[in-house]
């Protein structure tokens, strides 16, 4: 299970966001370069059609590492409506590099693939929170990550997630929500699939952060 919100930010303001996050999180940023492959089951396979994501972390040494991720449906109902973050089932598993070949053999086909390039912060603030800022890139040819181009040039996606359990998701959601308020000057974060656009005053906020030399204490 995880709590998740996301938003978009203009690329020109990403540096300011990084300064803000550095101050808030108190940890070193990590490079993010992930090849994300979404696989779908072939027709007739499975009780229902299914989808699974394979993530290849290209920055790991000595060689890329793989993770399989299953993202489930979001919590619904009156309780969910009152929470400003999305709470959904999510299961991850590290896998060895043969996983893609295995899923192909099991009747899964590549539906689409993306390359996410940017940075991330992972820290503890009443919950284990991860913030990633990345450009989302598509590939002109299958698996051609070196030829990837941005899906939306000039825009990057900000995603904030935190793992949760059925017992603690309220607290985790509150922690994520509370953290997101600090980012409000630059990026508006909301439940995925509910787009709110860029923050109109982001330019001013970014200018303030940049002119401060990154030394602002928050």
């Amino acid at each position: 299970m995880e709590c998740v919100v996301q938003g978009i930010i203009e690329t020109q303001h990403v540096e300011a966001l990084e300064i803000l996050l550095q101050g808030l999180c108190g940890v070193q940023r990590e490079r993010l370069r992930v090849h994300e492959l979404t696989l779908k089951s072939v027709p007739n396979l499975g009780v229902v059609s299914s989808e699974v994501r394979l993530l290849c972390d290209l920055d790991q040494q000595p060689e890329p590492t793989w993770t399989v991720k299953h993202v489930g449906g979001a919590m619904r109902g009156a309780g969910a409506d009152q929470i400003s973050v999305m709470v959904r089932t999510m299961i991850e598993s590290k896998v060895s590099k043969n996983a893609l070949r295995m899923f192909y053999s099991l009747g899964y086909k590549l539906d689409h693939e993306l390359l996410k390039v940017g940075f991330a912060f992972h820290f503890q603030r009443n919950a284990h929170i991860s913030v990633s800022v990345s450009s989302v890139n598509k590939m002109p040819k299958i698996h051609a990550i070196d030829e990837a181009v941005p899906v939306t040039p000039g825009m990057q996606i900000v995603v904030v997630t935190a793992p949760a359990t059925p017992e603690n998701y309220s607290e985790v959601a509150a922690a994520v929500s509370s953290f997101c308020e600090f980012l409000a000057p630059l990026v508006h974060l909301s439940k995925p699939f509910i787009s709110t656009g860029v923050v109109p005053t982001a330019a001013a906020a970014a200018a303030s952060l940049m002119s401060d030399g990154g030394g602002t204490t928050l």
Partner: protein
Amino acid sequence: MPVKWVLYWQPNQGSTVSTQILNEAAQCAESINGVKEGRWKATLNYYKPMLRDQSNHPDLPRDFLGISLADQPSKYYFIIRSQRIVVEADASIQLIMEKLQSYKSKVSLYFDGFQYQLGDFRLRVGRVVPVHSESIRGIVMEVEYLPISSVEKARKVMEEFVEIWHEALSKRSLSGKFVNTELNFGEFGLGDHYTPQHTGVQYAIVMAHMIATVQPVVRG
């Protein structure tokens, strides 16, 4: 990780596998100064594709299995023997498979028995039983040589140990023998340095041989 061979009991023509053979093997281990260390257990699941329309069968593997090994409680191993595929995953992959609902575990087997230390060797002898059943389907034996992680370097000393084992067991006049399956780890993309994936592949091969050669069992 130390090199391990996984052997299985092959009964003579007309014989069946039974708990008595397992007991004899255990006593044999003790007779050659094996020190009993405790129990061990592994679990193997055979997966079958779930099809909405049974008459339309896409080309899917019939030998997709998953195994949980005694030495790696937080991991799970998938093997598709016909495709020469072996994958190591976190144990949470089983939850992902349940969520996907594309494959279901149709047959589950336990391997369990006792573990013995014999000098630089560790021996595990265990029965193969279906989950929710006491009918023994087979017997497996793991032989591990602790000082060496290279498959090739360990070969000679493993062969010598198995020879000693066969000799000790032959005194008990059992109708069958433990068999080691020669397999080419390279075909599965595995190298000379031994890993749990090597063990997973051996279990998949052993099960395939066991199914092909062992007669259905009598209880006990």
